């Protein structure tokens, strides 16, 4: 098969790329290992809803049209949004890309349906292909669960649960596991604290309108850091910060430093990571007020840190039945046989332009802070596909 452009992945990024390619009359195909919106269908826990309110969830060819613009989509609604965007998109489902190599004409993709030859390739295979699990020597008898395995608390063994990581995934799972009656110990490293609502509006309304998401990748002080920033402590509908969790009975401990002789050892620096997050939250709210040109709105109680947080937890005592690793996700480029990934496994690109006709879409802060979110993909796709089309001439 010969095409001008092969797009890998039929998630929000691949679909957006296809719309822009069609608009530019570039013949292309979207190769999808599973079905449209595959990760949203198969790699998410039951209760997950998008962090962005419905009115923000816009894709080329599909916007929210339901009765609750201020609500938050569950996974079936996300799949529905993507399926509507996929109408008229040339998706080939069930096609796994095993490798991408350079060829005289551009690239050769080895797929489960035979080779595909393309002048240009758009990598839209997602930012969260693999859960990151740190290499620790966990004693046998303690079950280990990643967010890809986790569906709901009832599948966890009885007993206490150590949730490692306090970004969006960690705080959401800690809350629902604690509610299920399993006592949760939450290991907290650096994190991003956000209230759900500020001055009566969703905090992401502020991020969107105050221009935070519009900040360009090439104008940020520290792009590497921005791209590695953990997801904010947010959940659909209400504030879910560390104070909320403490009030629910979740026990906070520091960042997991090591597991030694069957005991988890936590950093004694919990107070400082909480202080850093509180300071950053207040600075963010200050920028909102500055943008609004008004007197400061409400400020939040500083994070309550236990007077003496435990720094050692014996994993052999029976207190902990399972560990949930909410320690982030990484993209998988093991199939990419082109030297464009650095020693740490990070794709090297300039705003989605990898070089030599290779492009990426759907990565955090790809071209602006808003790139991380579904609603950020259309602007990114316009820029990236614009570059691609220029290169074809």
């Amino acid at each position, binding site marked *: 098969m010969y095409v001008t452009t092969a797009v890998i992945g039929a998630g929000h990024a691949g679909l957006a790329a296809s719309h822009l390619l069609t608009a530019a009359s570039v013949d292309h195909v979207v190769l999808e290992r599973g079905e449209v919106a595959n990760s949203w269908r198969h790699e998410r826990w039951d209760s997950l809803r998008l962090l962005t309110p419905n009115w923000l969830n816009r894709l080329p060819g599909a916007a929210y049209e339901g009765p609750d613009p201020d609500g938050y989509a569950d996974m079936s609604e996300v799949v529905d949004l993507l399926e509507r965007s996929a109408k008229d998109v040339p998706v080939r489902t069930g096609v796994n890309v095993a490798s991408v190599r350079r060829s005289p004409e551009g690239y050769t993709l080895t797929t489960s349906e035979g080779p595909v030859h393309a002048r240009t390739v758009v990598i839209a295979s997602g930012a969260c292909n693999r859960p990151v699990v740190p290499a620790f020597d966990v004693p046998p008898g303690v079950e280990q669960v990643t967010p890809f395995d986790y569906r709901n608390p009832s599948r966890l063994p009885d007993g206490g649960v150590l949730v490692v990581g306090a970004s969006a995934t960690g705080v959401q799972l800690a809350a629902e596991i604690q509610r299920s009656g399993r006592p949760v110990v939450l290991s907290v490293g650096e994190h991003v604290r956000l209230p759900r609502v500020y001055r009566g509006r969703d905090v992401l309304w502020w991020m969107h309108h105050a221009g935070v998401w519009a900040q360009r990748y090439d104008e940020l002080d520290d792009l590497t850091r921005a791209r590695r920033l953990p997801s904010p402590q947010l959940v659909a509908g209400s504030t879910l910060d560390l104070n909320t969790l403490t009030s629910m009975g979740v026990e906070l401990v520091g960042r997991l430093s*090591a597991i030694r002789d069957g005991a988890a050892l936590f950093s004694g*620096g919990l107070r400082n990571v909480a202080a850093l997050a509180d300071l950053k939250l207040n600075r963010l709210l200050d920028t909102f007020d500055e943008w609004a040109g008004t007197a400061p709105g409400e400020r939040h109680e500083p994070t309550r840190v236990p007077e003496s947080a435990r720094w050692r937890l014996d994993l052999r005592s029976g207190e902990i039945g399972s560990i949930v690793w909410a320690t982030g996700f990484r993209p998988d480029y093991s199939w990419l046989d082109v030297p464009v990934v650095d020693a740490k496994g990070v794709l090297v690109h300039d705003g989605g332009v990898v070089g030599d006709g290779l492009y990426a879409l759907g990565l955090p802060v790809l071209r602006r802070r808003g790139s991380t979110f579904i609603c950020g993909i259309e602007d990114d796709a316009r820029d990236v596909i614009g570059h691609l089309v220029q290169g074809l001439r």
Partner: protein
Amino acid sequence: MSNGVNVQALLDAREVLKGAPEAAQFTWRASSKWQHGVHSTTKIQKFFGLGQEQSHKSESVFEADHPEVFAAEDNGVTPIEYLLVGLAACLTAGVASVAQNRGITLNSVESVVEGNHDIRGILGADSDVRNGFNDIKVTFTIDADASPADIEALVAQSQKRSAVFDALTNPTNVTVEVA
């Protein structure tokens, strides 16, 4: 505005070492000699870094002993107090560097470091009590041309990038051998 920290040199070093991780490997050394009783003298001058042997301008000598309430001669500070020296010095250096980088002029930076220690641990009087500090508290008093929130941010950032804060708050593998 200057606090006397050459931030540009540090930022340049950060860029260079990003591409040369081997040059970033340092080994700090101290040589200690027993004197008498629980008194020892430790000297520091040479270290390794940037791929070669390095040396401080001059040798520093540290006397360590225990106080008279420990039935010792008190020829110097208690070893665990040296940890307080390290923590205070490291955080203070961090405050000055971060302030320099953020364009904040410091007029004075003072801190008090308190380490709470239950000595029943080291005496073997109660096996449930640890040998080291139970907790450490650092209190900074800073006069700077900045808002209270900016000063708090300086102190928070200095902890985030402190070698001694990390060494005290996270476990480290320690090997002790007889040569």
